[in-house]
């Protein structure tokens, strides 16, 4: 296949920001252990800029890695009192994550081959029943099945009562104000904590978009010390000063 064609195809199928990063690194033929942060951060941001239609659901994830890249880049640019090798290289966290991710990708490639083989084998999973229906209706269940069964039961009951609770509506504007209020009160907002406080999926969704808007308009910044670390949102310095 033509190399440019593969490039085109792959642009649409990144499984996430790490996938995109790996692709950019491979394209540049860079050793993962020695990433030139300036180049790769620029490439990454260029990709985000050029992509005409970003899947909103996933934009935050791409932005989070972008902020991590910028963070690492800035850490490396800062003058240091101690030599770099005395501290942990800020790139190492990213490198470790990329190496682990690369293994997962490779494993899923191998599983895909097995899947293809298996899907061509046919099994008699639905033999005509030898016993009355009631007796053969047996299954292996997990905790999820148990819980799901209970909540389906509850939902059936809810429907019977035909009680309708009007959903509270949330506007982007309101949520944006709320987030700004929290940020002015405290210096930062814990991303996950904040979302877990949302009462409904809908409310969390609106909050999410408000936050995205704030990040896009450069009023707030989302930072993370490294993978597995809590994501914190805080006001940008200039916006903070202006508001003061």
């Amino acid at each position, binding site marked *: 296949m033509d190399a440019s064609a593969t490039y085109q195809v792959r642009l649409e199928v990144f499984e996430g920001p790490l996938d995109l990063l790996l692709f950019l690194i491979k394209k540049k033929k860079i050793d993962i252990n020695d990433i030139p942060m300036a180049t790769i951060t620029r490439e990454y941001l260029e990709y985000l800029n050029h992509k005409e239609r970003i899947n909103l659901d996933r934009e935050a994830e791409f932005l989070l890695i972008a902020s991590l890249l910028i963070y690492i880049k800035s850490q490396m640019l800062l003058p240091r009192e101690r030599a770099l090798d005395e501290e942990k290289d800020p790139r190492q966290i990213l490198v470790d994550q990329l190496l682990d991710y690369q293994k997962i990708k490779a494993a899923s490639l191998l599983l895909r081959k097995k899947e293809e083989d298996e899907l061509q084998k046919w099994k*008699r999973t*639905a033999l005509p029943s030898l016993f009355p229906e009631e007796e053969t209706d*047996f299954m292996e*269940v997990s*905790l999820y099945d148990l*819980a799901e*069964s209970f909540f389906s039961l509850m939902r059936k009951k809810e429907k019977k009562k035909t009680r309708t609770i009007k959903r509270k509506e949330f506007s982007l504007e309101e949520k944006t104000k709320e987030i700004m209020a929290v940020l002015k009160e405290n210096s930062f907002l814990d991303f996950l904590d904040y979302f877990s406080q949302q009462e409904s*999926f809908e409310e969390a969704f609106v909050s999410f978009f408000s936050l995205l808007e704030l990040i896009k308009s450069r009023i707030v910044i989302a930072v993370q010390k490294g993978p597995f670390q809590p994501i914190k949102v805080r006001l940008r310095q200039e916006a903070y000063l202006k508001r003061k």
Partner: protein
Amino acid sequence: MMKNRLKEVIESLIFISLEPLTLEKIKNVLQEYSEEEIEKAIKELLESYATNERGIQIIQSAGGYLFSTRPEHDIWIRRLFKLERKAKLSSAALEALSAIAYHQPATLAEISAMRGVDSSHTLKTLLQKKLIKIVGRKKSPGSPLIYRTTDKFLAYFGLTDIKDLPSPEEISKILEEEKDLEEEESSVH
């Protein structure tokens, strides 16, 4: 395709078919082959099952070919099915079990009310499987028996404590998402 390959294809078609597979259907699938080729391959296939000593056989039934076990193995097959039934839960049992798990201690009347079905038979099964136990009587008219899940229940579901059951929030989130997705899909089509 070589001749014995054709025989193998027909074998796999009969194997996978849940109903007796008619000659007509076989010919339909194998359009590329002449009727003679197909009939010859079937004959060879049947002969190979008749001469070899095998636990399964191809029988002709209702105008088609079908795999079946041999009648003399019936006793073993019944044993196997009994064994498998023992190890598993029915969907009714699962439903009653979930009602007890989340609402314990619970009485028969309460469980039946939650499910909208009389659950006495199901509770008996759960008691036999030792997934629930009787822990006393409720101080209310009729003093009904009250039930709780057992340690075996915890072990079955890999829990260390009953508090570790997935919470309403966790599961309803999963179920809600599912609903949203369905709505999205139906609006597209």
